[in-house]
């Protein structure tokens, strides 16, 4: 079996190679090949970990505490699988999408940078879930963060640049918090291995341990989008290219969240759990209610991510293995549904040239597959049976009720209330998509497609031109659905929420050892 270190080595090497070669065609296919290889290997690692228990990875025969400690257990192997698979799908989507995402000078050349940074982001995420040492954690965290700051600003539009800078400033504050926490832990433990620090902090004075815990949790919590540290998220997730929004909402915040939970358990014991539960529920309320008032599609989705992260964190903060289990199910469902939603909205924006929901009126006629995917993913997110989201939400409510605590009951009320709000705003969007096209909307849609984005299919554009000139009261717009590669990527994410629903007991079983790994560490 190939050593899992390839997960970090291959993306890094490919990234450098891409920049050296400098051709965007090479960049596309090299990165696709590399990530496809990793995604192909990931199930085998997962299976092996399930069979033989956790793997310790020793680099250059130097054992911890001196060497760099990596490990692959059911949790990290599960995440490796999730990251590699979604990474591959989003890369597939990027091939047709990215040429239209940036309309700035030198965009063609910049495309190689996009793939290089994307691979760095993957390397950072892989490292983050595999590392067993708190300083490496910081290093991989920085790799992940810095590549995502740049990717958010990729299109170089004003709003993306602004969002990228905000993201970077808040991310740096988080990094500073973390660094202080790491220094303070090193002072008491004299080691950087997480287990050593955990033991040392357990005997340290309570105030000291608490300070370390709070600094670390909040520092990391910025990336994990815990309320009220998630203020960067609506801007960043809505202004990034949609492929990056899908990655950020799909697994980056989730990876950060799970690493945070794992560290919370390994290093800080249960010090932070009650606070996390309260913050989680506040996040659900704020995220869902704020999403209700949004006029832009991707901003709505970004706020919905805040709410969803709150739901996951709530499940984790119950502090039971079944809580972790339920949280992981929700996480997996959210990756599928939210990635699909963001990827589809990328093409809604390309086709209409607008971020506003109102501009998508009647778009289902032009993009039937895209609109259908959007509706399916939305149904799962809201939790309609038989979709995945129904079962994961069910599991969370069940676990919360079993906790028999005030927090658990409050959680049930908040999550059920959140579901109502979620249904309202998501299906308001679906209604617009399937609504009737007014002549004015059609004209503006035509104008946008002709004006900017010399995008997909000049044939479609010329048909639009002729229609715009015709004095027809019922506007008929040429079909311009998702391109094939984007279609495949979105369909795969939607398939996850469908299969997750119909084969829920199987997923449930598969998540058991992952949850056990999270709880047992």
């Amino acid at each position, binding site marked *: 079996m190939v050593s899992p270190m390839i997960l970090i080595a291959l993306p890094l090497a490919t990234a450098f190679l891409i920049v050296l070669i400098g051709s965007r065609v090479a960049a596309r296919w090299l990165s696709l090949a590399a990530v496809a290889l990793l995604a192909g290997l990931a199930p085998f690692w997962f299976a092996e970990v399930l069979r033989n228990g956790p793997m310790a990875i020793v680099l250059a025969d130097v054992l911890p505490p001196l060497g760099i400690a990596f490990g692959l257990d059911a949790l990290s192997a599960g995440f490796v699988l999730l990251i590699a698979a979604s990474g591959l799908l989003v890369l597939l989507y990027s091939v047709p999408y990215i040429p239209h995402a940036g309309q700035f000078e030198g965009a063609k050349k910049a495309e190689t940078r996009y793939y290089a940074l994307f691979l760095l982001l993957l390397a950072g995420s892989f490292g983050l879930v595999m590392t067993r040492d708190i300083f490496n954690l910081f290093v991989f965290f920085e790799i992940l963060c810095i590549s995502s700051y740049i990717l958010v600003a990729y299109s170089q539009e004003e709003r993306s640049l602004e969002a990228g800078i905000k993201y970077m400033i808040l991310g740096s504050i988080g990094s500073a918090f973390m660094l202080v926490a790491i220094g303070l832990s090193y002072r008491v433990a004299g080691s950087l291995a997480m287990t050593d620090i955990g033991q040392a902090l357990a005997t340290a004075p309570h105030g000291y341990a608490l300070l370390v815990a709070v600094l670390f949790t*909040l520092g990391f919590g910025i990336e994990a989008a815990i309320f009220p540290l998630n203020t960067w998220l609506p801007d960043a997730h809505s202004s990034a290219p949609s492929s990056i929004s899908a990655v950020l909402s799909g697994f980056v915040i989730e990876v950060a969240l799970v690493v945070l939970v794992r560290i919370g358990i390994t290093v800080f014991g249960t010090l932070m759990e009650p606070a996390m539960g309260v913050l989680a529920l506040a996040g659900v309320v704020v995220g869902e209610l704020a999403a209700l008032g949004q006029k832009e599609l991707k901003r709505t989705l970004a706020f919905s991510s805040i709410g969803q992260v709150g739901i996951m964190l709530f499940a984790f903060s119950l502090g039971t293995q079944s809580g972790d289990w339920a949280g992981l199910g929700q996480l997996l469902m959210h990756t599928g549904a939210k990635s699909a939603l963001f990827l589809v909205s990328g093409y809604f924006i390309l086709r209409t040239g607008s971020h506003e929901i109102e501009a998508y009126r009647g778009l289902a006629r032009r993009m039937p597959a895209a609109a259908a995917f959007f509706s399916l993913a939305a149904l799962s997110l809201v939790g309609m049976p038989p979709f995945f989201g129904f079962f994961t939400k069910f599991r969370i409510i069940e676990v919360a009720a079993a906790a028999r605590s005030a927090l658990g009951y409050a959680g049930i009320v908040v999550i059920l209330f959140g579901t109502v709000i979620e249904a309202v705003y998501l299906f308001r969007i679906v209604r617009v998509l399937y609504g009737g096209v007014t002549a004015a909307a059609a004209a503006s849609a035509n104008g946008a497609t002709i004006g900017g984005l010399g995008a997909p299919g000049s044939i479609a554009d010329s048909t639009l031109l002729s229609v715009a000139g015709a004095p027809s009261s019922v506007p008929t717009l040429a079909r311009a659905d998702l391109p094939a590669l984007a279609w495949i990527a979105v369909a795969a994410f939607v398939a996850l929420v469908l299969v997750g*629903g119909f084969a829920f007991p199987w997923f449930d079983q598969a998540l058991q050892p992952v949850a056990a790994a999270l709880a047992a560490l």
Partner: protein
Amino acid sequence: MSITTLLLLPLAGFLGGIALAALAPASKSPRASGAIQKFVAVAGFALLFVEALATRSAADASRVELWLFGFPLHFAMTQLSWYFIAMVTGITLVTVLFSLQGLRDDGKYPLYYVWLFAKTFGMLGVLLANDLLSFFIMWEVMSWCTYFLLQQGGERAKRAAGGYLVYAVVAGMLLFAGLMYVLFHVGSVEFDAIGKAFAGFSAGSVIAALVLILIPMLIEAAAYPAHWWLPSAYANAETGISAYLAAISTRIGIYGMTFFLFAGFGLSVINIASANKFANVQEVLMVIGAFTMVVPTFTALFQHDAKELMTWHSIGQGGYMIVGIASSTTLGVAGGLFHVFNHMTYVSLILFSIAAVEYRTGTTNLNKLGGLIKRQPIAYLGLLFGIIGLAGIPPMNGFVSKWLIYRALILSGHPFIALSAFIATLGTILSVYKLIHNMFLGQLPERYNDIKEVGWGMRLPIIFMMAVVWLTGIFPGTILGVIAGIQKSLGLEALQYTTYGVAQGAGQLNMLVINIIFIAALLVSWLIYLAGGKRKHIGQYDNYAAGHFLDASIPYNYNYDFYAGMDHIFGPALHKPPVKRLEQSIGAVVLNASEYLRRLFTGNVTTYAAYVVAAAVVVLLALGGGR
């Protein structure tokens, strides 16, 4: 297994329809795809109805485990569910047959039949569900499919569907909470186990569970004060679909209420929940029912749109069912359940007639219609039969169920509820008079001179429903027999019935005699009419008013703003009642909260950094404060 077929057939119809729509989109060949859809729908729903009738023997016998969504759901047929299943499949078939001609502009409703299949699947699932978890899952499926069915239509229909969705999701979440409450207090989702456990619970716990479970049923049944979603949702649908929705869709809530009061958790539940004088589930339900009868019925009086008027009535008639069933007497439950059937028949008949008028005139606005009696006689007769049933006047079927309910209310000592029922019936009579007068009587506007009766595709369903409304009025025993069977299977005392009505022991009602008297009276008055002196036929403009001669330009416009005087007095309270204001205030609170929370995200990095620091301080103080 026949129960399996009942569930899989509509599911196959739905999936097949989706596949068909994807392979042969309506936009490419609307005519061919429409024809295929219609054929599949008629064949599918006809098969389903036959299957439903044939599975009656399975009632109370078998329990089926179906792995619909990757884990087992349990279904079983009871007498109660069979009654509703027969109604659902029957009225759906009639609606589909009516829609063949009645549904105009196929392109506007591309997935109408597909969602009708899906909705039927959800409804049958709810009716057959045999444990609380299966019930909840199928309930959710049904609500969402209703939402998608309501969306089939124009922009207004879509907006109204959005309103429905809010109520439906709230209902779903309450039911979810109820399910969890039961699961954690009883440890099982099986109805038997829940019933046994409830028998040993305190009244408070049982009431808490029942409230969480019954509120969603009442929302679905559009009971006061959770009825505001219904009028706009149903009135904005195509009229044929409105008929279906008003006839049976809402009544699944009545099924749920009956089921959870008497069947699901056993008979002892209602006694436990009604023992306390102050928190008495039965009394509260009856008061809700009384409000549901009176307020919407009088709101109907002031509607100027035939469909909207009828949707308000279909809410109001639900109130009769609620009070009847909640009275939990033999007569009351029988009356309530019979009223479900009767209401289904006459309300679809009325809405079919309205659809026939709308098909020719293009409007349902009561201020613009009039005098159509000679142009559309079948539609007129349909409406006449329907409103006689609706008003609960002999000889139609509505009279029998209302008679049972009145009698139950008086005998069980609920004089005020009975009084509300009488008042509501008065309101019904007033408003159906407005309906038939403004559509068919009075002067015919000139623009409708050339109108013809609709084709046989729509005529036949109307004539068929007329026959049903009248025949079940003469022979109520056919349906009462089924209901007595339900009562027996639930362990209630069964109604003593005869073919023509109610047996001596239960108060005696013979509809055959009443019909004979009625027909004899009609004959006598016709003879008197013949015997009366000379008659002169005059044109509709041969008229005068206070010395003015009226011609076609000035019709005697009695139609316009009917009941204007009453509207002036009662209107303000009914057009924007406290309930509507409450709904709006809740909406406003949520939107305002959304607005304030949205402003937390100022877009200013300095503020954001301050949040981080503030969070650090607060968490540190909160966690370390005590030491």
